[in-house]
C-alpha cells in the first residue's frame, strides 16, 4: 500500500480524479509525487487545460470572427 507511485500510476490517477473523488490516502501520495515530478505536473496541467478547452468548444467562436455585430 505504501509503495511510491510511478508516472504510469500517476497518469491514470490524474485522469481519475477529474471524474471522482479519490481516497485521501491516494491524494496524499499524488501530492508527494507532484512535488518531485515536473512531467506529472505537466500532464496534470494539460488535462486541466483540455477540460477548459472542451467547455469552450462550440461556444468560443465570436472571438476570432470579424466584429459584425
Amino acid at each position, binding site marked *: 500500500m505504501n509503495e511510491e507511485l*510511478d*508516472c*504510469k*500510476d500517476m*497518469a*491514470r490517477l490524474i*485522469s*481519475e480524479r*477529474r*471524474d*471522482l473523488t479519490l481516497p485521501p490516502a491516494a491524494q496524499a501520495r499524488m501530492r508527494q509525487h507532484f512535488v518531485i515530478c*515536473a*512531467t506529472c505536473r*505537466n*500532464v496534470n*496541467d*494539460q*488535462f486541466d*487545460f*483540455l*477540460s*477548459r*478547452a*472542451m*467547455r*469552450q*468548444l*462550440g*461556444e*468560443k*467562436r*465570436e*472571438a*476570432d*470572427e470579424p466584429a459584425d*455585430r
Partner: protein
Amino acid sequence: MTLESELAALRQPLFRFAKLQLRNDAAAEDVVSETMLAILETPDNFEGRSSLRTYATGILKFKIIDVIRKRGREVHIEPLDEQSMDDAMDALFARDGHWADPPPAWQEPDKALQQGQFFEVLQTCVDRLPARVGRVFMMREWLEQDMDDICQELGITSNNCGVMLYRARMQLRACLGRNWFEELR
C-alpha cells in the same frame, strides 16, 4: 440581424457538434431543429446575456443528453477490450513506470483558447478518437455529465468508463502536443 438569420448561421456548427456526439445525421438534424424551434418559440428567454451561440449550445446539450438517455436503454454499447487498450497505454511508459517520452510543458496554453484555429485542431483530435471512447469523453467533458449518469446510460462499469476517459485524455494530450503545441518528437 434577426434572430432567425442569426440562428440560421448557427445551424451548421450546431449540427457538427450534435453529429459528433450522436454519430448519426438524422438524430443530429432532429436535435438541432428542436433547439432552434425552442429558441424561436420563446425568444424572450434569450435576453442577450450570453451570446446566441452559447445560449443555443446550452439548449442543444440538454437535447443531446435526452437522446442519449433514451438510447442508453435501447442500445447496448459493447464493452471495450480493456486489455488491448491497456497495452496501447503501456507503450507510453518504460517498464519501470517512467515515461518513455516525457511530455514537456506547453507554452502559454491559454493563448490557444483565444484562437479559432486551435478549436479546429481540437475538433479534429476529438474526431479521431475511437467512436466509443469519443462518446464517453464528450459526455463527460463537453456535456459535463456525472460519471454515474454516463456509466448508467451506456451500461458500462465505472472502471470501464474511467479507462476510456483516461485513454481519451492521453490521446488528446498527445494529439494537441503534436499538432498545436509543437512538442518535439
